[in-house]
């Protein structure tokens, strides 16, 4: 009643044309024949790729800064925020002479994301205070082996000479947020 979409059942007798059934059959045949020539909706995946949005949430990247030092400080906020409990990490302290490798005094010696658990919600990215983890528009390749789906730092960390562009995931709000003085240290 609320939607005005309810219909009263009518026990109307079918007319002769309806009862001989053939016009309906021919109508149906015409409809299906129209579909026969229509453009197919299937995307033949490995050959064709589906168009994905600019800020698609795909495989994660662990960012390095312009000097090539890892940004992650193993604070564990991403792991806490993760609804699928996909992230595990082991923290370690930075030694002298490793300043070019790790940006903060503490870093993640082991950082693993289980891609089978991950639901690509992007909450880890939102939680990270160091802008160290981002989701990218890359798809996680399939594998026949569960162990291979646990991505360690070797697969997640980007190379300093080949940085992954994440500017598409930086919404105007994020960019405005970054202008604020008190977060300058995070540059």
């Amino acid at each position: 009643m609320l939607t005005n979409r309810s219909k009263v059942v009518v026990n109307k007798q079918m007319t002769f044309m309806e009862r001989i059934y053939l016009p309906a059959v021919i109508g149906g045949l015409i409809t299906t024949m129209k579909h026969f020539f229509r453009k197919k909706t299937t995307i033949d995946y490995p050959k064709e790729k589906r168009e994905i949005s600019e800020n698609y949430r795909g495989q994660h990247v662990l960012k390095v800064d312009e000097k090539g030092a890892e940004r992650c400080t193993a604070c564990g906020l991403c792991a806490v925020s993760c609804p699928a409990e996909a992230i595990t990490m082991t923290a370690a302290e930075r030694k002298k002479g490793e300043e070019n490798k790790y940006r903060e005094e503490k870093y993640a010696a082991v950082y693993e994301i289980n891609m089978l658990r991950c639901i690509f919600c992007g909450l880890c990215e939102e939680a990270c205070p160091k802008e160290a983890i981002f989701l990218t528009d890359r798809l996680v390749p399939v594998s026949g082996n569960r162990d291979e789906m646990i991505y360690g730092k070797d697969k997640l960390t980007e190379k300093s000479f080949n940085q992954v562009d994440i500017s598409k995931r930086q919404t105007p709000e994020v960019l405005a947020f970054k202008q604020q003085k008190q977060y300058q240290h995070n540059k």
Partner: protein
Amino acid sequence: MVGGYIIYKSIMVVLIFLIGLGIAAYSTYAERKVAAFLQDRLGPNKAGPYGLLQPIADGVKMFMKEEIIPDVSNKFLFILGPCIAMLTACMTGVVIPWSTPIIFNGVSYPLQITDINIGILYVFGVVSIGVYGIMIGGWASNNKFSLLGALRASAQMISYEIAMGLSIIALVMMTGTISLGEIAAQQSGGNWNIFYQPLGFLIFITCAFAECNRTPFDLPECETELVGGYHTEYSSMKLGFYLFAEYVNMFISSAIISTLYFGGYNMPFIGRFVTDPNMLSILGVVFLFGKIFFFIFFFMWIRWTIPRFRYDQLMHLGWKIFIPLSILNIILTGAGILFFNK
């Protein structure tokens, strides 16, 4: 001469058998493609170019599957079921006239394995035996779903055979013969029976759908109610035989529909362009196969358009509508013959 005759006939039999199987195999592929296209999908396209090797992959899969014969089944009958289904499906092909005879070195080679003068009766007889394949298979499985499926199948086939037979009687009254070869020959020059027997054709093709257990009459295999119907317990190539027999039946029914109503190997006006009888005869085969392929496509087209009937509707349609209609058709035909003195 007799030796040559036997060799020639054997070659024909083997050839038609192989063609029948080949077409049935590729009908499974075509069915999946047509289904996909009618539903805006692409269909199988991974095995070979355009998925053309799919039937072979399916066949290999069927052979590799484990063969399971239920403990409680009647083993002999269980194996006999698919054999009968396949045998009867392949047997009907012998009376179909594929084209006019080819004359080679002064000897005429008819492109029909045997033109027995009761061709239509033979087809009916063999098709009726086909019910046994389903019935025996369903009963021997000792499974309630199989039995129900088999019961439905046999009830359906028997009731629709009556209407089918009656619709043929009108045709036979008109043609005056029940030899398929003569019926095909009479329809030369665009003189197709469909123009004289539209109602009969409609009844015949609907009954052919029911006989082949194709949608909208595929109740024996109705998955939602009966798991798999009469072949629920079957696995491996025995299941393959049942499924395959359906496609062979489809091929044969298409051939018979084309022969009875659509002029068989005849094509109007072709005689004006080609005069060499051998050339005409080869073209006849091409035309007949063109018609057959159209009807196979039509079978599939219908399948993906019209939903399945309910069982009581099916019986209602068969007994209360088609049988009176076909009797009416006989009367009309009789009146027509009397009136036009044809």
